Protein backbone atom coordinates (compact mmCIF):
# COMPACT_ATOMS: atom_id res chain seq x y z
CA UNK A 1 0.00 0.00 0.00
CA UNK A 2 2.87 2.34 0.87
CA UNK A 3 6.12 1.86 -1.00
CA UNK A 4 9.14 4.12 -0.49
CA UNK A 5 11.98 3.47 -2.96
CA UNK A 6 15.48 4.94 -2.75
CA UNK A 7 14.34 8.34 -1.50
CA UNK A 8 16.80 11.18 -0.88
CA UNK A 9 16.18 14.53 0.76
CA UNK A 10 18.26 17.63 1.35
CA UNK A 11 17.51 21.11 2.59
CA UNK A 12 19.08 24.12 0.88
CA UNK A 13 19.13 27.25 3.03
CA UNK A 14 19.40 30.02 0.44
CA UNK A 15 19.48 32.82 2.98
CA UNK A 16 22.10 31.24 5.18
CA UNK A 17 25.01 31.03 2.77
CA UNK A 18 23.19 28.50 0.58
CA UNK A 19 24.05 25.80 3.08
CA UNK A 20 23.09 22.37 1.80
CA UNK A 21 22.04 19.89 4.45
CA UNK A 22 21.65 16.33 3.17
CA UNK A 23 19.26 14.58 5.55
CA UNK A 24 18.36 11.33 3.86
CA UNK A 25 19.47 9.00 1.12
CA UNK A 26 18.55 5.51 -0.04
CA UNK A 27 15.43 5.40 2.11
CA UNK A 28 13.30 2.39 1.16
CA UNK A 29 10.44 0.62 2.90
CA UNK A 30 7.19 -1.13 2.08
CA UNK A 31 4.05 -1.40 4.14
CA UNK A 32 1.34 -3.90 3.25
CA UNK A 33 -2.37 -3.49 4.03
CA UNK A 34 -3.08 -4.47 7.63
CA UNK A 35 0.52 -3.92 8.66
CA UNK A 36 1.90 -1.38 11.13
CA UNK A 37 5.55 -0.36 10.77
CA UNK A 38 7.37 1.71 13.39
CA UNK A 39 10.01 4.23 12.38
CA UNK A 40 12.79 4.22 14.96
CA UNK A 41 16.08 6.04 15.34
CA UNK A 42 17.58 8.75 17.49
CA UNK A 43 16.08 12.23 17.61
CA UNK A 44 17.11 14.01 14.41
CA UNK A 45 17.57 10.80 12.43
CA UNK A 46 14.76 11.83 10.08
CA UNK A 47 11.68 9.94 11.28
CA UNK A 48 9.37 12.94 10.98
CA UNK A 49 11.09 14.07 7.78
CA UNK A 50 10.38 10.73 6.13
CA UNK A 51 6.80 10.81 7.35
CA UNK A 52 6.31 14.34 6.05
CA UNK A 53 7.69 13.32 2.66
CA UNK A 54 5.21 10.46 2.46
CA UNK A 55 2.41 12.92 3.23
CA UNK A 56 3.66 15.31 0.52
CA UNK A 57 4.41 17.96 3.11
CA UNK A 58 8.13 17.93 2.22
CA UNK A 59 9.49 17.72 -1.30
CA UNK A 60 11.54 14.72 -2.36
CA UNK A 61 14.93 15.18 -4.04
CA UNK A 62 14.92 11.78 -5.75
CA UNK A 63 13.29 8.37 -5.53
CA UNK A 64 9.62 7.45 -5.47
CA UNK A 65 6.93 7.22 -2.80
CA UNK A 66 3.89 5.30 -3.89
CA UNK A 67 0.73 5.43 -1.80
CA UNK A 68 -1.91 3.37 -3.57
CA UNK A 69 -1.75 4.49 -7.19
CA UNK A 70 -0.13 7.87 -6.57
CA UNK A 71 3.58 8.70 -6.60
CA UNK A 72 3.69 11.42 -3.99
CA UNK A 73 7.21 12.44 -5.08
CA UNK A 74 6.01 13.62 -8.50
CA UNK A 75 2.20 13.97 -8.31
CA UNK A 76 0.62 17.38 -8.95
CA UNK A 77 -0.94 19.12 -5.92
CA UNK A 78 -4.44 18.18 -7.04
CA UNK A 79 -3.68 14.44 -6.89
CA UNK A 80 -2.05 14.77 -3.48
CA UNK A 81 -5.06 16.68 -2.17
CA UNK A 82 -7.37 13.90 -3.39
CA UNK A 83 -5.04 11.29 -1.88
CA UNK A 84 -5.11 13.06 1.48
CA UNK A 85 -8.87 13.38 1.37
CA UNK A 86 -9.65 9.76 0.55
CA UNK A 87 -6.65 7.51 1.09
CA UNK A 88 -3.92 8.86 3.32
CA UNK A 89 -4.58 10.04 6.87
CA UNK A 90 -2.07 11.83 9.06
CA UNK A 91 -2.20 12.32 12.80
CA UNK A 92 0.35 15.00 13.55
CA UNK A 93 1.59 15.98 16.98
CA UNK A 94 -0.13 19.31 16.85
CA UNK A 95 -3.72 20.26 16.25
CA UNK A 96 -4.07 23.02 13.67
CA UNK A 97 -7.64 24.25 13.21
CA UNK A 98 -9.63 27.35 12.36
CA UNK A 99 -10.26 29.12 15.67
CA UNK A 100 -13.82 29.14 17.04
CA UNK A 101 -14.94 25.98 15.23
CA UNK A 102 -16.61 23.51 17.65
CA UNK A 103 -14.73 20.30 18.46
CA UNK A 104 -17.50 18.12 17.04
CA UNK A 105 -17.21 19.86 13.66
CA UNK A 106 -13.41 19.66 13.73
CA UNK A 107 -13.63 15.88 14.14
CA UNK A 108 -16.46 15.47 11.60
CA UNK A 109 -14.77 17.54 8.87
CA UNK A 110 -12.69 14.79 7.23
CA UNK A 111 -15.88 12.73 6.78
CA UNK A 112 -17.80 15.67 5.32
CA UNK A 113 -15.04 16.23 2.81
CA UNK A 114 -15.38 12.65 1.50
CA UNK A 115 -19.11 13.21 1.06
CA UNK A 116 -20.65 11.80 4.26
CA UNK A 117 -23.91 13.40 5.42
CA UNK A 118 -23.69 15.84 8.32
CA UNK A 119 -25.70 13.40 10.45
CA UNK A 120 -23.44 10.40 9.85
CA UNK A 121 -20.26 12.45 10.22
CA UNK A 122 -21.39 13.90 13.57
CA UNK A 123 -22.52 10.51 14.84
CA UNK A 124 -19.06 9.09 14.13
CA UNK A 125 -17.42 12.16 15.69
CA UNK A 126 -19.52 11.77 18.87
CA UNK A 127 -18.62 8.10 19.08
CA UNK A 128 -14.88 8.81 18.77
CA UNK A 129 -14.90 11.72 21.23
CA UNK A 130 -16.75 9.56 23.76
CA UNK A 131 -14.29 6.69 23.27
CA UNK A 132 -11.39 9.07 23.82
CA UNK A 133 -12.96 10.40 27.02
CA UNK A 134 -13.47 13.99 25.90
CA UNK A 135 -16.30 15.23 28.18
CA UNK A 136 -19.47 15.91 26.23
CA UNK A 137 -19.76 19.45 27.61
CA UNK A 138 -16.60 20.33 25.62
CA UNK A 139 -17.87 19.11 22.24
CA UNK A 140 -19.51 22.39 21.32
CA UNK A 141 -16.39 24.40 22.21
CA UNK A 142 -13.35 25.10 20.07
CA UNK A 143 -10.43 22.80 20.93
CA UNK A 144 -7.98 25.72 20.78
CA UNK A 145 -8.58 26.37 24.48
CA UNK A 146 -8.21 22.72 25.55
CA UNK A 147 -5.30 21.22 27.47
CA UNK A 148 -2.45 19.63 25.51
CA UNK A 149 -3.66 16.09 26.14
CA UNK A 150 -7.23 16.94 25.18
CA UNK A 151 -6.07 18.61 21.97
CA UNK A 152 -4.07 15.54 21.12
CA UNK A 153 -7.09 13.31 21.63
CA UNK A 154 -9.22 15.59 19.44
CA UNK A 155 -6.51 15.34 16.82
CA UNK A 156 -6.59 11.55 17.04
CA UNK A 157 -10.39 11.48 16.82
CA UNK A 158 -10.17 13.64 13.70
CA UNK A 159 -7.46 11.41 12.22
CA UNK A 160 -9.50 8.24 12.76
CA UNK A 161 -12.89 9.66 11.70
CA UNK A 162 -12.54 8.49 8.12
CA UNK A 163 -11.37 4.90 7.47
CA UNK A 164 -8.25 5.78 5.49
CA UNK A 165 -6.56 2.81 3.73
CA UNK A 166 -3.17 4.28 4.71
CA UNK A 167 -2.25 6.19 7.85
CA UNK A 168 0.72 8.08 9.25
CA UNK A 169 0.85 8.47 13.03
CA UNK A 170 3.36 10.86 14.61
CA UNK A 171 3.57 10.04 18.34
CA UNK A 172 -0.12 9.26 18.78
CA UNK A 173 0.30 8.06 22.37
CA UNK A 174 2.70 10.70 23.69
CA UNK A 175 1.44 12.50 26.80
CA UNK A 176 -1.65 10.30 27.16
CA UNK A 177 -2.59 8.53 30.40
CA UNK A 178 -2.82 4.74 30.50
CA UNK A 179 -6.58 4.64 29.85
CA UNK A 180 -6.48 6.85 26.79
CA UNK A 181 -3.34 5.20 25.52
CA UNK A 182 -5.20 1.89 25.54
CA UNK A 183 -8.07 3.49 23.60
CA UNK A 184 -5.68 4.82 20.96
CA UNK A 185 -3.92 1.47 20.65
CA UNK A 186 -7.37 -0.10 20.22
CA UNK A 187 -8.15 2.33 17.39
CA UNK A 188 -4.87 1.41 15.72
CA UNK A 189 -5.65 -2.32 16.07
CA UNK A 190 -9.09 -1.75 14.57
CA UNK A 191 -7.57 0.15 11.65
CA UNK A 192 -5.11 -2.70 11.05
CA UNK A 193 -7.93 -5.24 11.23
CA UNK A 194 -9.84 -3.44 8.48
CA UNK A 195 -6.70 -3.49 6.34
CA UNK A 196 -5.10 -0.09 6.82
CA UNK A 197 -1.37 0.22 6.14
CA UNK A 198 0.14 2.22 8.99
CA UNK A 199 3.48 3.92 9.58
CA UNK A 200 4.02 5.24 13.09
CA UNK A 201 6.54 7.00 15.28
CA UNK A 202 6.26 5.82 18.89
CA UNK A 203 8.75 6.81 21.54
CA UNK A 204 6.78 4.68 23.96
CA UNK A 205 8.35 1.19 23.57
CA UNK A 206 5.37 -0.58 25.13
CA UNK A 207 2.92 1.01 22.73
CA UNK A 208 5.23 0.16 19.86
CA UNK A 209 5.41 -3.46 20.93
CA UNK A 210 1.63 -3.62 21.25
CA UNK A 211 0.69 -2.55 17.72
CA UNK A 212 3.73 -2.66 15.44
CA UNK A 213 4.63 -5.68 13.35
CA UNK A 214 8.20 -4.55 12.70
CA UNK A 215 10.59 -1.64 13.00
CA UNK A 216 12.54 0.32 10.40
CA UNK A 217 15.65 2.11 11.68
CA UNK A 218 15.68 5.48 9.93
CA UNK A 219 19.29 6.21 10.94
CA UNK A 220 20.42 3.72 8.28
CA UNK A 221 19.09 6.28 5.75
CA UNK A 222 21.10 9.15 7.25
CA UNK A 223 23.84 10.30 4.88
CA UNK A 224 27.32 9.86 6.39
CA UNK A 225 28.81 13.19 7.47
CA UNK A 226 28.98 15.01 4.18
CA UNK A 227 32.35 16.64 3.69
Amino acid sequence: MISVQDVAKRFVLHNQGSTVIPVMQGASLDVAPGECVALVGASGAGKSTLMRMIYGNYTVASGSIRVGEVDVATAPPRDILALRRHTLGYVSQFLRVVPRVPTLDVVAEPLLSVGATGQDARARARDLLAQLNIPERLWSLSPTTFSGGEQQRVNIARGFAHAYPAMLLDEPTASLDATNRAVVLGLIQDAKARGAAIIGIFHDAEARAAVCDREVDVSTFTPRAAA
Partner: protein
Amino acid sequence: MSADHALLQVTGLTKSYGQRMGCADVSFDLYPGEVMGIVGESGSGKSTLLNCLAGHLPPDTGSVGFHMRDGTVRDTVRMSEPERRMLGRTDWAFVHQHAVDGLRMNVSAGGNVGERLMAVGARHYGDIRSAAVDWLGRVEIAEDRIDDRPRQFSGGMQQRLQIARNLVTGPRLVFMDEPTGGLDVSVQARLLDLLRGLVREMGLSAIIVTHDLAVVRLLADRLMVMKDGHVVETGLTDQVLDDPQHAYTQLLVSSVLQV
Protein backbone atom coordinates in the same frame (compact mmCIF):
# COMPACT_ATOMS: atom_id res chain seq x y z
CA MET B 1 -18.37 18.27 -7.92
CA SER B 2 -15.42 16.00 -8.59
CA ALA B 3 -15.67 16.95 -12.27
CA ASP B 4 -12.42 16.36 -14.03
CA HIS B 5 -12.13 19.58 -15.97
CA ALA B 6 -10.37 22.73 -14.90
CA LEU B 7 -12.65 25.61 -13.97
CA LEU B 8 -9.99 28.12 -14.94
CA GLN B 9 -7.10 27.60 -17.35
CA VAL B 10 -4.63 30.45 -17.34
CA THR B 11 -1.92 30.54 -20.01
CA GLY B 12 0.95 32.97 -20.42
CA LEU B 13 -0.77 35.91 -18.77
CA THR B 14 1.41 39.03 -18.98
CA LYS B 15 0.69 42.64 -18.07
CA SER B 16 3.20 45.45 -17.99
CA TYR B 17 2.83 49.11 -17.11
CA GLY B 18 5.24 50.69 -19.57
CA GLN B 19 8.69 49.66 -18.45
CA ARG B 20 7.44 48.14 -15.24
CA MET B 21 6.34 44.53 -15.13
CA GLY B 22 2.93 43.86 -13.55
CA CYS B 23 2.85 40.10 -13.97
CA ALA B 24 4.88 38.01 -16.37
CA ASP B 25 3.92 34.82 -18.17
CA VAL B 26 1.67 33.35 -15.47
CA SER B 27 0.09 29.97 -16.20
CA PHE B 28 -1.94 27.64 -13.98
CA ASP B 29 -5.10 25.53 -13.82
CA LEU B 30 -7.68 25.83 -11.07
CA TYR B 31 -10.12 22.98 -10.48
CA PRO B 32 -13.62 23.05 -8.98
CA GLY B 33 -13.46 23.17 -5.20
CA GLU B 34 -9.86 24.32 -5.12
CA VAL B 35 -8.69 27.35 -3.21
CA MET B 36 -5.46 28.92 -4.41
CA GLY B 37 -3.56 31.53 -2.46
CA ILE B 38 -1.27 34.09 -4.07
CA VAL B 39 1.32 35.60 -1.74
CA GLY B 40 4.16 38.03 -2.22
CA GLU B 41 5.30 41.42 -0.99
CA SER B 42 3.67 44.70 -2.02
CA GLY B 43 4.37 45.38 -5.68
CA SER B 44 5.02 41.75 -6.53
CA GLY B 45 2.19 41.80 -9.06
CA LYS B 46 -0.33 39.71 -7.18
CA SER B 47 -3.15 42.27 -7.38
CA THR B 48 -2.38 42.96 -11.04
CA LEU B 49 -2.67 39.24 -11.73
CA LEU B 50 -5.95 39.01 -9.84
CA ASN B 51 -7.41 41.95 -11.74
CA CYS B 52 -6.36 40.44 -15.08
CA LEU B 53 -7.97 37.13 -14.11
CA ALA B 54 -11.20 38.79 -13.06
CA GLY B 55 -11.46 40.88 -16.21
CA HIS B 56 -10.86 44.22 -14.50
CA LEU B 57 -7.62 44.81 -16.38
CA PRO B 58 -6.84 43.78 -19.97
CA PRO B 59 -3.64 41.70 -20.04
CA ASP B 60 -1.08 42.37 -22.79
CA THR B 61 -0.90 38.71 -23.79
CA GLY B 62 -2.20 35.38 -22.59
CA SER B 63 -5.59 33.78 -22.11
CA VAL B 64 -7.97 32.92 -19.27
CA GLY B 65 -10.17 29.95 -20.15
CA PHE B 66 -13.28 29.65 -17.99
CA HIS B 67 -15.42 26.52 -17.94
CA MET B 68 -18.94 27.87 -18.43
CA ARG B 69 -22.07 26.27 -17.00
CA ASP B 70 -23.02 25.00 -20.48
CA GLY B 71 -19.78 22.98 -20.60
CA THR B 72 -17.92 25.15 -23.09
CA VAL B 73 -14.59 26.80 -22.30
CA ARG B 74 -14.50 30.51 -23.09
CA ASP B 75 -11.51 32.84 -23.12
CA THR B 76 -12.68 35.63 -20.84
CA VAL B 77 -9.94 37.95 -22.08
CA ARG B 78 -11.48 37.93 -25.54
CA MET B 79 -15.20 37.77 -24.75
CA SER B 80 -17.35 40.86 -25.14
CA GLU B 81 -17.70 43.32 -22.29
CA PRO B 82 -21.42 42.53 -21.67
CA GLU B 83 -20.63 38.81 -21.46
CA ARG B 84 -17.85 39.46 -19.01
CA ARG B 85 -20.09 41.67 -16.90
CA MET B 86 -22.72 38.93 -16.87
CA LEU B 87 -20.10 36.50 -15.52
CA GLY B 88 -19.18 39.09 -12.92
CA ARG B 89 -22.79 39.12 -11.69
CA THR B 90 -23.38 35.37 -11.75
CA ASP B 91 -20.52 32.87 -11.70
CA TRP B 92 -17.83 35.20 -10.44
CA ALA B 93 -17.55 37.22 -7.30
CA PHE B 94 -14.88 39.74 -6.41
CA VAL B 95 -14.15 40.74 -2.85
CA HIS B 96 -12.17 43.96 -2.89
CA GLN B 97 -9.52 44.95 -0.40
CA HIS B 98 -11.40 48.18 0.29
CA ALA B 99 -15.08 47.61 0.92
CA VAL B 100 -16.01 50.96 -0.65
CA ASP B 101 -14.92 49.54 -4.02
CA GLY B 102 -17.28 46.62 -3.70
CA LEU B 103 -20.33 48.19 -2.05
CA ARG B 104 -22.91 50.78 -3.00
CA MET B 105 -22.49 53.24 -0.21
CA ASN B 106 -25.87 54.96 -0.66
CA VAL B 107 -27.90 51.75 -0.55
CA SER B 108 -28.89 49.97 2.68
CA ALA B 109 -27.02 46.87 3.85
CA GLY B 110 -29.99 44.68 2.92
CA GLY B 111 -30.20 46.41 -0.44
CA ASN B 112 -26.54 45.74 -1.12
CA VAL B 113 -27.08 42.04 -0.63
CA GLY B 114 -30.45 41.99 -2.37
CA GLU B 115 -29.16 43.84 -5.41
CA ARG B 116 -26.92 40.92 -6.38
CA LEU B 117 -29.91 38.60 -6.13
CA MET B 118 -32.09 40.89 -8.27
CA ALA B 119 -29.31 41.01 -10.86
CA VAL B 120 -29.76 37.28 -11.37
CA GLY B 121 -33.55 37.48 -11.51
CA ALA B 122 -34.89 37.31 -7.94
CA ARG B 123 -38.04 39.42 -7.66
CA HIS B 124 -39.89 38.31 -4.53
CA TYR B 125 -39.28 40.97 -1.89
CA GLY B 126 -39.79 38.63 1.08
CA ASP B 127 -37.37 36.04 -0.30
CA ILE B 128 -34.74 38.64 -1.07
CA ARG B 129 -35.08 40.19 2.38
CA SER B 130 -34.87 36.87 4.18
CA ALA B 131 -31.81 35.85 2.12
CA ALA B 132 -30.26 39.18 3.05
CA VAL B 133 -31.00 38.63 6.76
CA ASP B 134 -29.56 35.12 6.56
CA TRP B 135 -26.33 36.31 4.94
CA LEU B 136 -25.92 39.29 7.26
CA GLY B 137 -26.23 36.83 10.15
CA ARG B 138 -23.59 34.55 8.67
CA VAL B 139 -21.12 37.42 8.56
CA GLU B 140 -22.16 38.54 12.04
CA ILE B 141 -24.03 41.72 11.19
CA ALA B 142 -27.05 42.16 13.48
CA GLU B 143 -30.45 42.00 11.80
CA ASP B 144 -31.42 45.44 13.12
CA ARG B 145 -28.67 47.00 10.98
CA ILE B 146 -30.24 45.75 7.73
CA ASP B 147 -31.68 49.16 6.82
CA ASP B 148 -28.55 51.11 7.69
CA ARG B 149 -26.24 52.28 4.97
CA PRO B 150 -22.67 50.91 4.75
CA ARG B 151 -21.40 54.43 5.43
CA GLN B 152 -22.67 54.04 9.00
CA PHE B 153 -20.73 50.78 9.44
CA SER B 154 -17.24 50.30 10.81
CA GLY B 155 -14.54 49.27 8.33
CA GLY B 156 -14.69 45.66 9.44
CA MET B 157 -18.47 45.53 9.12
CA GLN B 158 -18.26 47.00 5.62
CA GLN B 159 -15.89 44.22 4.66
CA ARG B 160 -18.21 41.56 6.06
CA LEU B 161 -21.11 43.11 4.18
CA GLN B 162 -19.10 42.99 0.98
CA ILE B 163 -18.48 39.29 1.44
CA ALA B 164 -22.19 38.66 2.08
CA ARG B 165 -23.10 40.65 -1.04
CA ASN B 166 -20.68 38.59 -3.11
CA LEU B 167 -21.57 35.13 -1.90
CA VAL B 168 -25.37 35.45 -1.78
CA THR B 169 -25.78 34.38 -5.42
CA GLY B 170 -23.72 31.21 -5.01
CA PRO B 171 -20.91 32.01 -7.44
CA ARG B 172 -18.59 29.26 -8.73
CA LEU B 173 -15.40 31.30 -8.54
CA VAL B 174 -14.52 33.96 -5.99
CA PHE B 175 -11.63 36.38 -6.37
CA MET B 176 -10.46 37.93 -3.13
CA ASP B 177 -7.96 40.72 -2.69
CA GLU B 178 -6.75 40.81 0.93
CA PRO B 179 -10.26 39.87 2.13
CA THR B 180 -9.40 39.65 5.81
CA GLY B 181 -7.17 42.72 5.84
CA GLY B 182 -9.57 45.01 7.65
CA LEU B 183 -11.18 42.49 9.96
CA ASP B 184 -10.95 41.72 13.67
CA VAL B 185 -9.10 38.47 14.15
CA SER B 186 -12.22 37.02 15.77
CA VAL B 187 -14.38 37.73 12.74
CA GLN B 188 -11.57 36.67 10.47
CA ALA B 189 -11.65 33.20 12.03
CA ARG B 190 -15.42 32.99 11.60
CA LEU B 191 -15.10 33.98 7.96
CA LEU B 192 -12.36 31.46 7.31
CA ASP B 193 -14.63 28.75 8.66
CA LEU B 194 -17.55 30.06 6.61
CA LEU B 195 -15.47 30.07 3.43
CA ARG B 196 -14.18 26.56 4.08
CA GLY B 197 -17.75 25.34 4.54
CA LEU B 198 -18.88 26.99 1.30
CA VAL B 199 -15.99 25.50 -0.61
CA ARG B 200 -16.93 22.06 0.65
CA GLU B 201 -20.69 22.31 0.22
CA MET B 202 -20.91 24.24 -3.04
CA GLY B 203 -17.71 23.10 -4.70
CA LEU B 204 -16.73 26.77 -4.73
CA SER B 205 -13.31 27.70 -6.12
CA ALA B 206 -11.42 30.72 -4.93
CA ILE B 207 -8.28 32.70 -5.66
CA ILE B 208 -7.09 34.68 -2.67
CA VAL B 209 -4.44 37.35 -2.75
CA THR B 210 -3.02 38.06 0.68
CA HIS B 211 0.17 38.62 2.55
CA ASP B 212 -1.11 36.78 5.61
CA LEU B 213 0.54 33.35 5.57
CA ALA B 214 -1.65 32.14 8.45
CA VAL B 215 -4.77 32.82 6.38
CA VAL B 216 -3.53 30.89 3.36
CA ARG B 217 -2.43 27.98 5.53
CA LEU B 218 -5.94 27.55 6.87
CA LEU B 219 -7.80 28.36 3.68
CA ALA B 220 -5.78 27.58 0.56
CA ASP B 221 -5.08 24.14 -0.88
CA ARG B 222 -2.42 25.50 -3.18
CA LEU B 223 -0.07 28.43 -3.04
CA MET B 224 1.60 30.61 -5.64
CA VAL B 225 4.48 32.85 -4.55
CA MET B 226 5.19 35.97 -6.63
CA LYS B 227 8.13 38.31 -6.74
CA ASP B 228 8.70 41.19 -9.18
CA GLY B 229 5.85 40.02 -11.40
CA HIS B 230 7.12 36.47 -11.70
CA VAL B 231 5.83 33.29 -10.11
CA VAL B 232 8.83 31.95 -8.18
CA GLU B 233 7.23 28.95 -6.53
CA THR B 234 3.99 26.97 -6.58
CA GLY B 235 2.78 23.88 -4.78
CA LEU B 236 0.65 22.51 -1.98
CA THR B 237 0.20 25.22 0.62
CA ASP B 238 1.67 23.27 3.52
CA GLN B 239 4.57 22.06 1.38
CA VAL B 240 5.47 25.58 0.20
CA LEU B 241 5.26 26.93 3.77
CA ASP B 242 7.00 24.02 5.53
CA ASP B 243 9.62 23.18 2.91
CA PRO B 244 10.06 26.30 0.74
CA GLN B 245 12.45 25.82 -2.18
CA HIS B 246 13.02 29.32 -3.52
CA ALA B 247 15.24 31.81 -1.70
CA TYR B 248 12.47 34.42 -1.64
CA THR B 249 9.89 31.99 -0.20
CA GLN B 250 12.36 30.94 2.47
CA LEU B 251 12.85 34.58 3.39
CA LEU B 252 9.10 35.18 3.44
CA VAL B 253 8.34 32.17 5.65
CA SER B 254 11.22 32.78 8.03
CA SER B 255 10.21 36.41 8.47
CA VAL B 256 6.83 35.64 10.04
CA LEU B 257 6.65 36.65 13.67
CA GLN B 258 5.63 33.84 16.00
CA VAL B 259 2.63 34.50 18.22
